[in-house]
């Protein structure tokens, strides 16, 4: 604290605290409070606002959670987001590990550049590109058919494949970067030491590398899950009509001017994400302070 004082000065510190405070208040706390307030009120025409019917109620949540269709989509969003997180982890861990271990070689630099360049392109454009690749008469289907793996085109878009592939791809960097940061700080001698003591490669990862990377792993999983579950553009473009995403339900409600219902949907999503965070942190036995490192 005193070192921060000498570094930033009294005014600087005051600015930092005010800015952070305002950020939290205006961009996080206020919208959340307003959302919660809306979520627990019924949808009424303006004349009834403040009237006897305008009271707190669970009715909206009853609709959100008890409706069969909503339940399916809610559960789909959960398992698909978990799947996206797991696939992303599986894809990113080897990449991040290679990057971290070869950080001094030129090869690693090219790999990093190759990873970042696609992300200079707008998220929507990338989703469109995937749509072209995965569409009914798209490149993937043509290649698979000409190779004889399938006899008729596979409906990637309506069978959730599109959304999942798209989400994994879109949020790849959010998994790679925290993993890389965590893995980069691992002393390579520890890996060699484990090898020298007779450990096969998978044991080295399980006993030495993963425990070290745990905070980054938790970080990457949580962020990827939240981004996936809260994504709108990707499911909209790659989901087709047969595979709705929970965010699309929220959007539909706001679009139909039923803000109260929309807020209830949104609130459920927030709770879902919080529950996921708690579960991941409990599974990996990490604390908030570890993740913020």
């Amino acid at each position: 604290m005193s070192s921060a004082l000498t570094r930033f000065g009294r005014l600087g510190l005051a600015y930092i605290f005010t800015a952070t405070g305002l950020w939290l208040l205006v961009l996080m706390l206020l919208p959340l409070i307003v959302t919660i307030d809306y979520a627990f009120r019924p949808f009424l025409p303006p004349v009834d606002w403040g009237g006897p019917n305008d009271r707190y109620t669970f009715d909206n949540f009853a609709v959100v959670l008890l409706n069969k269709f909503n339940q399916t989509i809610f559960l789909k969003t959960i398992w698909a987001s978990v799947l996206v997180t797991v696939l992303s982890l599986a894809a990113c861990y080897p990449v991040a590990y290679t990057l971290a271990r070869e950080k001094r070689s030129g090869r690693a630099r090219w790999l990093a550049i190759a990873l970042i360049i696609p992300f200079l392109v707008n998220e929507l454009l990338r989703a469109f590109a995937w749509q072209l690749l995965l569409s009914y008469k798209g490149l993937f289907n043509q290649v698979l058919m000409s190779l004889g793996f399938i006899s008729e085109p596979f409906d990637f878009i309506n069978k959730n494949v599109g959304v999942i592939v798209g989400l994994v791809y879109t949020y790849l960097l959010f998994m790679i970067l925290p993993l890389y940061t965590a893995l980069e700080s691992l002393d390579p001698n520890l890996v060699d030491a484990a090898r020298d003591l007779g450990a096969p490669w998978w044991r080295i990862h399980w006993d030495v590398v993963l425990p070290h990377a745990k905070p980054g792993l938790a970080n990457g999983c949580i962020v990827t899950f939240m981004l996936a579950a809260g994504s709108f553009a990707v499911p909209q473009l790659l989901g087709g009509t047969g595979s709705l995403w929970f965010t699309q339900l929220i959007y539909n409600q706001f679009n139909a001017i039923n803000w109260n219902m929309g807020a209830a949907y949104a609130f459920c999503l927030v709770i879902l994400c919080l529950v996921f965070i708690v579960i991941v942190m409990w599974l990996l036995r990490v604390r908030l302070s570890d993740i913020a490192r």
Partner: protein
Amino acid sequence: MKNDLALIGVAKTFGPHVAVQDVSVDIAEGSFFSFLGPSGCGKTTILRMISGFIEPSAGSIRLGTLDLAGIVPNRRPTALIFQNLALFPLMSVAENIGYGLKVRGVSAAARGRKVDEMLDLIALSGFAGKRIEELSGGQRQRIAIARALAVEPKVLLLDEPLSALDLKLRQHMRAELRTLQRRAGITFIYITHDQGEALAMSDRVAVMSKGQIEQIGGSSDIYDNPGSAFVASFVGESNILVGRITATDGQFAVIETAVGDLRGRNPKHLTTGDAAMLFVRPERLRIAAAEDDLVVNSLTGDINEVMFEGLTFIITLRHVSSRLVTLSLANDGTGLAFAPGSRQTVSFSPADGLILPAGPIARLDVVP
């Protein structure tokens, strides 16, 4: 014996850079062997080739009759102590020591017994549950050794393991390592750029320079009979005088130097006219008494500086030719009989002067 380690013509190149070149050495089972050399001479590379982390570009490494080529590190009967120890920070002391056994599928009970036995060996019983960060440098050192010994390797490889410790602890650990090696009864291969460490602990020492072995021998052999200018200058302190041979007779020769004609041993049989260097250890020089009849190897000059180092006085003498000569006198408790600035004559016996072919040396303060 059956677990002697042999390096036969081993070489390693990194691209155009030759890190190790034609290294051949036999290391007897159960001995304490050191590779001694300045930084960058290829010591770590040799150790990593023995442990299997890098494959030699040429030559072979054998343990007894077993050729180690192609055997990956996790299957080699060697264990490596890393320069920074590389203890697993997230595991306890017991988990560290037992790790090698755990990955071999040894049961928890057997592992526990071995860990206790190892902790006993390194005199740290009761430390099993401690975390690595709670230990002192010397304790970590011993844990690293215990972790390596727990898998019962045939050869233990140590890469400058004492370099991070302070002087006192380093000296203490020398003795301790030697004791541990005797008790474990296996081959220790020790790497260091500290000649004091190598000489104190080793049965045999290989002195290296630029990826090659300059000389292999016992500690006192290396110290008293260095085979090249590099070894003579790198191991221990020496006064080095450059010159030319002017006469030879039997085991001895006379070399003409900037401080006059000096007589010394001539083990390399140099002949008149050869460029040569004379090496004299500071402790072999003595201050001549007035009644001494000095015919050979005397140098007269003014005492330039006296440094007291406890065990010895380190005295530099400015020869009349303005060259500096260093000698050390044992501190026998009577103090020095002369003052800085006084004129003195020092001399050494021809048997204590060593004449070698002129060659690259490991220090810069040469007398031209």
